[in-house]
């Protein structure tokens, strides 16, 4: 059995870092050593930032985003178009859309997609919140920004049924050739979708 080379505090730091995505035990050890070497400029501020985040971060009860206030900064922003509601699977998707600046709408985070294999059923997702938000006066369009996977699109069709009785237009993201994509390397499904959804040039 390998002998520990550091005290329990450092071992605990390494163990916790190793739980982060992208880090294994070896890279966690390197990260811990780097933090210790930069104690004043990195370890201290990081520890403070993490403590503040742990104390203040809440999930927005309106959209499901994470922020330090409820409602979150996006739900409070008066410049956003209240007529458009963008439905995303996860907070990371919301952040990706915000990074792109492609849409200035409000959001709703579902918290996953339907997946019989993983046992994720409608009652596990925020469909109740979605129907409530889509029923609000002034909402005219619901954009389903879900992954182009079988599970993502099954969820999209489920939502379309769910919102069928509401006077809102339900749209989804286009499927097709990505920027920088070469036709020769695309799968048949993407090519078929791109041909089906071709636009005038």
């Amino acid at each position, binding site marked *: 059995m390998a002998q520990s080379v550091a005290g329990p505090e450092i071992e605990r730091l390494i163990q916790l870092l190793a739980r982060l995505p992208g880090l294994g035990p070896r890279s966690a050890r390197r990260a811990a050593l780097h933090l210790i070497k930069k104690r004043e400029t990195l370890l201290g501020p990081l520890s403070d930032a993490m403590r503040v985040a742990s104390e203040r971060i809440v999930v927005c009860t309106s959209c499901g985003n994470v922020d330090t206030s409820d409602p979150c900064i996006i739900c409070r922003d008066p410049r956003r178009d209240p007529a458009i509601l963008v439905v995303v699977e996860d907070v990371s998707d919301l952040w990706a859309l915000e990074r792109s600046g492609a849409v200035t709408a409000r959001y709703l985070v579902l918290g996953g997609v339907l997946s019989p294999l993983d046992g994720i059923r409608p009652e596990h997702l925020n469909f109740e919140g979605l129907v409530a938000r889509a029923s609000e006066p002034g909402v005219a369009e619901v954009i389903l920004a879900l992954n182009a996977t079988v599970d993502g699109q099954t969820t999209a069709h489920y939502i379309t049924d769910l919102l069928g009785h509401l006077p809102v237009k339900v749209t989804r993201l286009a499927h097709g050739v990505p920027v920088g994509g070469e036709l020769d390397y695309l799968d048949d*499904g993407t090519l078929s979708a791109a041909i*089906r959804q071709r636009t005038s040039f």
Partner: protein
Amino acid sequence: MQWRDEGVVIGVRKHGESSVILELMTREHGRHLGLVHGGRSKRQQPVLQPGNIVDATWSARLDEHLGTFRIEGMTLRAGEFMASPMALFGLATLAHLLRQLPERDPHRDLYESLTGLLANLTDPDLAPPLFVMFELSILAEFGFGLDLSACAATGQRHDLVYVSPKSGSAVSADAGAPFRDRLLRLPRFLVGQSRDNRPAPDDLRDGFALTGYFLQRHVFEPLGASAPAERQRFVALATVETGDAA
């Protein structure tokens, strides 16, 4: 240990940060799982979507190990299925039914039936009757095949309109008349009497009710489960009056 076979993707589960555990229904090796290294990469993800047919090479040190798959796409229809709610709910139901089969047990006839159904899953005329026939094949693979060739009471081979819920055998109109409230209806397309390209919605509903009854009794009930909600949605879309389900 190593083999190479053709298979249909029926499920993918994340494993670690970049790999997946892939569940395939293969032609010669039945339902088989294996690890795909880098299965969450941009190149692999479109191939590893349910409903796609792939060329799989499985290898492991020992036969009882999970093993790893090396995958190459053959017929990639997932993109086509995504445009059709009927196909997507059908696909989820198919995967659920296939998942009830024991692992690594070959079912060659069922595999042929599966690929035939997948080739037509977005066709609102062909998919519903093929789906009923596929469910009959699944029942047969479980050892509960229905005998729809002759009347259980009289032995006659014509005018078969009912199925006995007890024996799973066909019953003729005359023999079944006194008990018709307790018998299941046998749709004409299952005894080759329907000449229409698309069976009537009532016939399709009878077909799904027939297979649904026996699937519940012989497959789901012993496991303490019930048919998936996706089946109900598929049946609703597959039995609409017009052909606009897809």
